[in-house]
């Protein structure tokens, strides 16, 4: 029983130390001048953040609908048609599967970003400028991740286009040779 308690205490201590060290690595330090600027421009900074949050939500809704429609109204249907005609659609189904996984990541990362931005907006920047800057920095990192997700999805759409062009080339060649 004693050894079990010791092991448990060791695990808890390790988790606490690791959490503390990662928090130190992510901590953002601002200069006294920046602190003063945050305090002075607190209202205008918050206003900019609120506007950004609003337009990012609109962007997320429009992007989400577009990406979802590309998957359900184009990719899935073309894959089904290929399967129905017994055409090898492996590159298409693989890309669609990756695209769906990318879409899930995009949704999750956007949610994480929005939660960080909401956390930043809830902080009184006139009273806690350092904490505010840290929250903004966290949201900034998450927003970059969302941008990476968007780029990854765009690359997968390009891959799908490339596979379509290759398939078209094969059919054009076959029709040209009279097969």
């Amino acid at each position: 029983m004693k050894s079990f308690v010791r092991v448990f205490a060791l695990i808890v201590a390790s988790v606490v130390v690791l959490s503390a060290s990662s928090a130190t690595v992510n901590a953002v330090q601002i200069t006294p001048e920046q602190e003063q600027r945050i305090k002075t421009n607190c209202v205008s900074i918050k206003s900019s953040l609120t506007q950004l949050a609003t337009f990012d939500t609109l962007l997320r809704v429009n992007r989400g609908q577009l990406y979802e429609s590309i998957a359900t109204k184009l990719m899935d249907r073309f894959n089904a048609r290929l399967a129905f005609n017994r055409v090898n659609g492996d590159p298409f189904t693989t890309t669609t599967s990756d695209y769906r996984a990318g879409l899930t990541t995009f949704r999750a990362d956007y949610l994480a970003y929005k939660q960080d931005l909401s956390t930043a907006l809830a902080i009184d920047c006139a009273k806690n400028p350092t904490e505010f800057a840290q929250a903004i920095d966290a949201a900034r990192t998450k927003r970059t991740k969302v941008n990476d997700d968007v780029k990854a999805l765009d690359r997968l759409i390009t891959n799908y286009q490339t596979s379509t062009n290759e398939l078209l080339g094969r059919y054009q060649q076959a029709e040209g040779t009279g097969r």
Partner: protein
Amino acid sequence: MDDLQQTAEQQGSFISRHRFFILVGLTIVAALIMVSVSLVIYNLSGAAELDLSRPGYKEVRDQVIDEEATFENYSAAGQINTTTINEFKDLLDDQAAAAAAVDAFGGDPLGPDSLDYGTTVSTSE
């Protein structure tokens, strides 16, 4: 024994006398519980973050693109030949161009420069 029987009878008569108010009270409690659970799910699922019907989103509500109306479906049934592949290619190219037209979530609007609080923010290692 008689006292116990009398108390049980009194309780029974209390419930039967106030059953309408008890029913209303229990209905309100049940409704409050269900509304609370719904709100928790609404927030945790992320639906709240995308709900443009909320008051703060009034100015951008009309900028939502209705994909149902503008997005052309490709039929899942039919032949595969150069004509049908070309039809699909045109549809996909249009949507790919729409997706690539804007660098979504790009730029650095959360940077210290953009938010006007300085140029150097150092990260401690």
